[in-house]
């Protein structure tokens, strides 16, 4: 292999590759932003559905607490806009920091607790499979 010291930091070909990669990412973002708004929130623990809520049926925010792996309690706030994990017993708080999700297909995950909050649906009849 070419010795490390003789390798360049960046080359023309590589910078083009990276630019293309960034374009792909931007494209993905565009596609995601065009997706329909969510209609239903599904909270799962270890792959099993523990709670389901039709978001349009809500008059205001509603909090649901789910107990996950290791006794970690995850509190989800469901509202007509979407879902958000507002409190969790996990160590890293990644789920809380994810913030509000509003689009169908988006999700908030708490990996240590094995809890996930997913938004599904869209204008009637959409099939969203992952």
């Amino acid at each position, binding site marked *: 292999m070419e010795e490390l010291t003789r*390798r360049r*930091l960046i080359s023309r070909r590589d910078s083009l590759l990276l630019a293309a990669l960034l374009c792909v990412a931007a494209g993905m973002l565009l596609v*995601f932003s065009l997706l329909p708004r969510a209609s239903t929130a599904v909270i799962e623990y270890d792959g099993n559905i523990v709670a389901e809520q039709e978001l349009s049926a809500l008059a205001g925010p509603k909090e649901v607490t789910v107990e996950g792996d290791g006794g970690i309690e995850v509190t989800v706030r469901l509202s007509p806009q979407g879902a958000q994990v507002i409190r969790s017993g996990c160590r890293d708080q990644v789920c809380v920091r994810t913030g509000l999700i509003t689009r169908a297909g988006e999700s908030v995950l708490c990996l240590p607790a094995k809890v996930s909050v997913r938004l599904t649906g869209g204008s009637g009849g959409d099939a969203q499979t992952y």
Partner: protein
Amino acid sequence: MKKASGRVAFTGLLAALALSFSFLEGLIPPIPVLPPGAKLGLSNIVVLYAAGSLGLPAALFLACLKGGFALLTRGVTAGLLSISGGVLSALVMWLLLQKTRASLSLVGVCGALSHNAAQLCAAWLLTSAAVVFYLPFLVLFGVLTGLLTGLVLKLTLPPLQRIERYLLQ
């Protein structure tokens, strides 16, 4: 110094360096703007260097060690994520260095991206949620941190090479 013991000493030195970087990263307070769970990947600099100068076994060893450290300090989930990302990343970087003439930036970026990809898969396996939505942010962040990795390595190569040459005489 005999080559074999020199390699052991040098690998140990790199391992300590990698763990220090991991620890340092853990001290940085989480920034709200960035994707949650995103890290600077400073310890990947060491893995990249090992992949390029000591070979695949050393790089994999460092990746596993980092995973073990994450397991002990941040728990099972963190350990699993770290080792899956670290092993794939080490492998990808070594392959790129071995088989292609890719620049350090590209190798760093591919290392960061494969690290993220493995972690995304691990997250999906643990929760079977639609993790695809994290992709654009992970790609962007992977490119940025990968570039940083390549740059820092380029800048710190001289002292690293001096130590390596002394130990591996």
